[in-house]
């Protein structure tokens, strides 16, 4: 098999100033997104941020107001059938055909998609403890999710588009899901995961994008993103906690008796200089979790998003 040149390799997903307005509501504004083949991308944002809109645009369920979207170099709007052949989708909520059994639905979805790894499908049914003999109307929400997950992973599609896929799954099944994503990644499949579950995104994703009010405000690896926010410091003193508000880079100072809490942006040296020799008993510093990063963008003090400054 000949080597592909770097320039020939198409990104799994590429959007160019992708915009969607629903009447007066600007659901998505000038989205420029690039996902390389083989990556696992997390896509975060609160309800109404535009995550599902992005996915619906990629899947040609809705048409963009302007801009374009491509999957593996194929235009999502002009060549939807070819695009769909290379991807599989798990929605957060699915409406199934109530009179068909789980087995029949898996068969149907496999035939309609065109490619199924039968052995893997049977293995997944086993691993997810899914009973395919019941009719769809008898399934609980969690079981319906399992069905859609199995239907997507069994196709071994090059791109997996997952919109809150573990909605309603218990922790054991969530672990199974994570295993499946790792296996897909090992096989070179690309995964686009839109999720609220920050621990899941933290555990699975190479890069994370944060969407806010239709604008992509951050995109990068977790370590890159961490540098953008402050380090959390908590210190306990022998005596009264000193006031460090004047120290450069220090914000959000809280003093309660002997305890001092603050945030440090940039180098921590000025703060350490300030409190050295003041009888520090304990010092704890913590990198922000993805939740804190996320909340920093959505807290009341955060500035409204500006498409011009977006990634």
């Amino acid at each position, binding site marked *: 098999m000949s080597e592909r040149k770097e320039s020939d390799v198409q990104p799994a997903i590429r959007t160019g100033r992708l915009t969607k307005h629903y009447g007066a509501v600007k659901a998505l504004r000038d989205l420029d997104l690039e996902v390389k083949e083989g990556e696992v991308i997390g896509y975060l944002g609160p309800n109404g941020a535009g995550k599902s809109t992005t996915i619906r645009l990629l899947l040609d369920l809705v048409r963009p107001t302007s801009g374009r979207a491509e999957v593996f170099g194929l235009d999502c709007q002009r060549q939807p059938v070819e695009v769909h052949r290379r991807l599989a989708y798990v929605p957060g909520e699915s409406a199934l055909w109530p009179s068909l059994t789980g087995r029949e639905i898996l068969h149907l979805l496999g035939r309609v998609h065109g490619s199924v790894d039968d052995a893997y499908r049977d293995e997944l049914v086993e691993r997810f403890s899914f009973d395919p003999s019941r*009719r769809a109307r008898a399934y609980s929400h969690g079981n319906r999710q399992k069905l859609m997950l199995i239907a997507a992973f069994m196709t071994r599609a090059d791109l997996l588009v997952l919109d809150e896929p573990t909605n309603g799954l218990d922790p054991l099944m969530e672990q199974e899901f994570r295993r499946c994503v790792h296996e897909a990644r090992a096989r070179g499949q690309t995964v686009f995961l839109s999720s609220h579950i920050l621990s899941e995104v933290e555990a699975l994703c190479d890069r994370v994008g944060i969407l806010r009010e239709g604008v992509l405000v951050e995109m990068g690896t977790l370590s890159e993103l961490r540098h953008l926010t402050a380090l959390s410091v908590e210190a306990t003193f022998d005596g009264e906690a000193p006031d460090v508000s004047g120290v450069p880079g220090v914000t959000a100072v809280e003093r309660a008796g002997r305890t001092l809490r603050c945030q440090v942006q940039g180098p921590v040296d000025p703060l350490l200089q300030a409190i050295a020799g003041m009888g520090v008993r304990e010092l704890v510093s913590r990198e922000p979790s993805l939740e804190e990063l996320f909340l920093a963008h959505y807290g009341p003090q955060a500035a409204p998003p500006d498409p011009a400054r977006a990634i």
Partner: protein
Amino acid sequence: MAASTTARRSVRSGVLRGYVFGVVVASQSLAYASTYKTARSRTALAAIFGHNAGLAAINGQAYDLTTTAGFTAWKCLMFLALAGSVWGLLLATRLVRGEEEAGRFELLAVGPTTRRRATAETLAGLGAGPFVLWAITAAVTIAVGHSSKVRIGPGAALYFALALALPALVFAGVGAVTSELAPTRRQASSWAGLVLGASYAVRMVADSSNGTVWLRWLSPLGWAEELHPLYAPDPLALVPLVALAGLLAGAAVVLSGRRDIGTGVLAGREGRAGSGRLLGSAGALALRLQRSTLAVWAGGIGLGALLLGSIATDGGKLVATSSTLRNDLSRIGATGPGATQYLSITFVLVALLVAFLAAGEAAGLRAEEASGRLEPLVVAPVSRSRWLAGRVAIAAGSVLACGVLAGALTFLGSVASHARLGAGPLLEAGLNIVPPALCVFGAGVLALGLVPRAVAPAAYGLVAWSFLAELLGAALHSNRLLLDLSLFHQMAPAPAAAPDWTSAGVMVGLALAAVLVGGAAFRRRDLAGA
């Protein structure tokens, strides 16, 4: 709380049906009054139709066909009582079982109330529908009854409307009980439908000969007949009707306390394995999901055609005695022997049914998109055009098959009654009813592309409009314009006249254009999900 939401929906449904019933009563009474003006023609009508066992089986016994009131009662009572009963049971299963399947009944039942109270409130709201049906049908009948040609007093009109609305109430009760027993809405409707079918069959047997008249007391539809509205009112039968309605409502409330939400008292048929057939593609899936509905439609149309064919001879005699009717028919181009002319009228009814089927197919397209079940197909490598093309093929094929079936079975029925009609003209008449139905479907697809929420109103509205225009136009005799607005009027009155292939071609062409435009718009727009 439950009562008012259910009542709102029930009343909305009842208002529409009330107007339709009223129009049917008005048109039938006006048609009779203007067609049979002389005492002689009325006596002749009574002689032909009054003692026909076959007609009595379908329409009930004819007591007095020489007055407008008597004729209206005979023509309308059984037809509307049956239609009302079907409506009642479908309304009940939709508002009781359907609400539960949608998960909305749960929200009421977990509130500060007991299961039984919630059900009782729902049933109270449900009852508002037949009440409104009664009120509006009575109002329209009173309005028409003022006319000197018709002469039906307000009291008689109220009593007549009661005879139509009470069976609806009773079968709403049946629907409520089966909703408690059956695990799904489909099964609840089928079981209630079976009970209705059995009631109708018993009444049919009762009316077909003198010795079996007592059987009428075993069927709610028979009780409606025993009320003898509009000519010899006998309120005795009101007692079993009201009593049964109350009993069924009580039973439904009691049963609701006994079962789990989400299933029925007689649940447990879920264990059957799927047949696994017809799942190879989106088109095959569509066939599989619709096969039982299409079979029922085809069966119903076929049976109807058979029956109508078998009474063609008597219908022909009726036409032969009425010069007014003959004039009307020749005005629209219907010629030939009496039986053929009679069939040209009845084929309009079959055309209505097939158009209803087409409207249902169109509404199904929108329902699939709105429910979110289209999404997994469209996200797969199935283009929207391919999906739509498959559904168009199924709709067109079903309509065509029903048309051919109608023609063939009318012929078979006519053979059984020795009417000596040719198979060719009847088959052509069957094909003739296909283009209006295709137009209805085309209108639905056009709406699907341009204004998706309007698919069901557009398709069903076109059918209802065409039928009402036809009915009113025929009754009022005069209004050519009104008749021209009806799709059914654009088709030639086959088999009494040769089918007008030009206008058929135009209708098919319009339908095709509508499908193409609608399809293109559908491909371009955003899909509205669940």
